């Protein structure tokens, strides 16, 4: 028997005649939701950027040969001492080759796995950068520039030159920006490298690399796999590392376990390698949501207060409505619909304000050495935030309206009318 048209009409009249209070309540929601959208978009944008900083460059599974002592020392195998306590002093790591045995077939095998987006080889080696009589220690990494750019967004960290240029230049090198500064080198110059086992190789600089981590940029450079193999005097199957990128990051742990068992290699998944980083992300998200929810709850109390006051003011109206045949439920619906209208209007305005502010923030310049690709503050324009925002606005106003409206439902008209 609820006649919505009449109820909404009464609710509308109440709201419009008390436009000041209505807009105060709606503004509470607007600011709550607007701040939530701004905060959550900005914070997750920053989080996403920091995640990308690590995750884009980091392989989901990193496979290499770990230098470690044998788990079983010879004495453990000897039956005579089986039941005695053996102490071995000064254990040395086992002498193994740095290269991954049968690396190329393993790469092919991994690339056939349907979870794997790509598995690419790398060669890591220590070298010296030679300038005049000064030798600077450093790392040289042999890569497939094009695949590296495709899978690990390498291009984002090349501040001058390109991955393609490295691919096309036979004796090219992508020099870390720190070394380039130290040695006053520019694109087109030559830099001389010396591997640990001797010899000097001049390489042509085709670009600069800046990871954002200054210590790393002061030692690390990239070149083609073949160039490293030539410098080290190794064969074409000499590969020290395999980096795997997956479609789904959650597959990293099981896959790394499987690889360790299957190939007797060390395989580190991204979650293990960056555990503290993950913790940081989780805590930042937690703070974001805690602050947002606080804002929304405060807005909810604002609505609660204003509706409560409205109901005290409208005691006579409630009594008269009940006396002329409106049921308690009708009266409750009148006040509930007011709360929901306030929530909806305030919420939608809040979304617009949030969109407005995030767009402004998105144009504010933000340049830092650590993040070569970022020019403005990062914003995550995720439609889900807007959905959550409006849902929360509706839910909080629903509860803020529910309690006062329940009171209105229970008001005894006789008491009001006789009490005058």
């Amino acid at each position, binding site marked *: *028997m609820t*006649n919505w*048209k*009449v109820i909404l*009409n*009464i609710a509308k*009249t*109440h709201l419009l*005649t008390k436009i000041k209070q209505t807009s105060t309540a709606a503004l509470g929601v607007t600011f709550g939701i607007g701040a939530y959208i701004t905060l959550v978009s900005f914070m997750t944008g920053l989080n996403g950027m920091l995640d990308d900083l690590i995750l884009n460059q980091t392989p989901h599974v990193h496979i290499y040969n770990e230098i470690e002592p044998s788990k079983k020392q010879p004495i453990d195998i000897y039956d005579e001492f089986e039941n005695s306590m053996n102490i071995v002093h000064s254990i040395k790591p086992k002498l193994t080759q740095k290269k991954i045995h049968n690396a190329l077939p393993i790469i092919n095998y991994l690339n056939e796995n349907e979870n794997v987006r790509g598995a690419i080889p790398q060669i890591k080696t220590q070298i010296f950068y030679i300038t005049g009589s000064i030798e600077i220690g450093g790392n040289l990494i042999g890569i497939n520039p094009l695949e590296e750019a495709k899978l690990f967004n390498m291009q984002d960290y090349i501040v001058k030159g390109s991955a393609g240029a490295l691919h096309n230049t036979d004796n090219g090198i992508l020099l870390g920006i720190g070394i380039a500064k130290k040695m006053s080198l520019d694109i087109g110059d030559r830099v001389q490298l010396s591997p640990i086992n001797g010899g000097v190789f001049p390489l042509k600089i085709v670009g600069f690399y800046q990871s954002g981590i200054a210590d790393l940029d002061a030692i690390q450079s990239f070149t083609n796999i073949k160039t490293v193999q030539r410098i080290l005097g190794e064969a074409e199957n000499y590969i020290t590392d395999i980096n795997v990128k997956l479609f789904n990051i959650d597959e990293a742990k099981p896959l790394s376990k499987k690889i360790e068992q299957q190939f007797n290699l060390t395989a580190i998944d991204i979650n293990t390698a960056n555990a503290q980083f993950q913790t940081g992300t989780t805590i930042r998200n937690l703070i974001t949501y805690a602050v947002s929810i606080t804002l929304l709850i405060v807005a909810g109390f604002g609505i609660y207060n204003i509706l409560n006051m409205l109901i005290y003011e409208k005691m*006579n*109206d409630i*009594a*008269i*409505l*009940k*006396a*002329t*045949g*409106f*049921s*308690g*439920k*009708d009266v409750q619906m009148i006040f509930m619909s007011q709360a929901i209208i306030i929530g909806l209007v305030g919420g939608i305005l809040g979304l617009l304000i949030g969109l407005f502010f995030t767009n402004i923030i998105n144009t504010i310049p933000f340049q830092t050495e650590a993040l070569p690709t970022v020019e403005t503050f990062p914003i995550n324009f995720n439609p889900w935030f807007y959905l959550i925002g409006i849902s929360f606005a509706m839910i909080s106003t629903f509860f803020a309206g529910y309690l006062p409206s329940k009171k209105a439902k229970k008001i*005894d*008209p*006789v008491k009001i*009318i*006789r009490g*005058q």
Partner: protein
Amino acid sequence: MSIVLESRNINKYFKKPVLFHVLKDINFKINKGEFTSIMGKSGCGKSTLLYILSTMDTDYKGELLINNELITGDSRENLSYIRNKHIGFVFQFHYLLSEFSVLENVMLPAKKLGEKSLPEIKHDAMQKLKILDIDDLAKKRASQVSGGEKQRVAIARALINNPSIIMGDEPTGNLDSHNSDNVFNIFKQLSDEQGLSLLVVTHDEDFAKRTDRIIQMGDGKIIN
């Protein structure tokens, strides 16, 4: 003569602050078209009785019949519907929704009832206002009309659903003699011309004397 309202052995107690027997075995009938007034001293329970008869107060013992149907113990929803359809109210203080126009105030119970279309309701409301000679106030806000006019608007609102009975709780109590007369004449006219039943609680002896029947109350009982 058909019976519009009947009270059978209605008893009511106030529990706070102390147990107090307000109404003692109230029995009476009101016939269709009768203009009845209830008189009595302050505190004798006449208003309490009226609110029980109006179905708003459900905390009583006994039986209440409207149009020969027992409504004691009905759900609140149903009582609301009965109030809406069968009972019209006029109070001492002219309870109007001050933010709505006069016309909207009159139309509201009919909109709630929802039996007629909006243009029909509007037409009816204008007609009722015309009967009460205040149709020129239709567009004014309820808060902007005078006291006597407000009471007439309240009467028009009470009439809108063509109720079986109109109840008044001191409807002239707050009006000067001119406006009191006016309201009485309107009631009388409605009773005579349209055969409307009226039950009015009043202090005003002149008012009561001119009605068809006076129910005299004292100490929670009907004296005659």
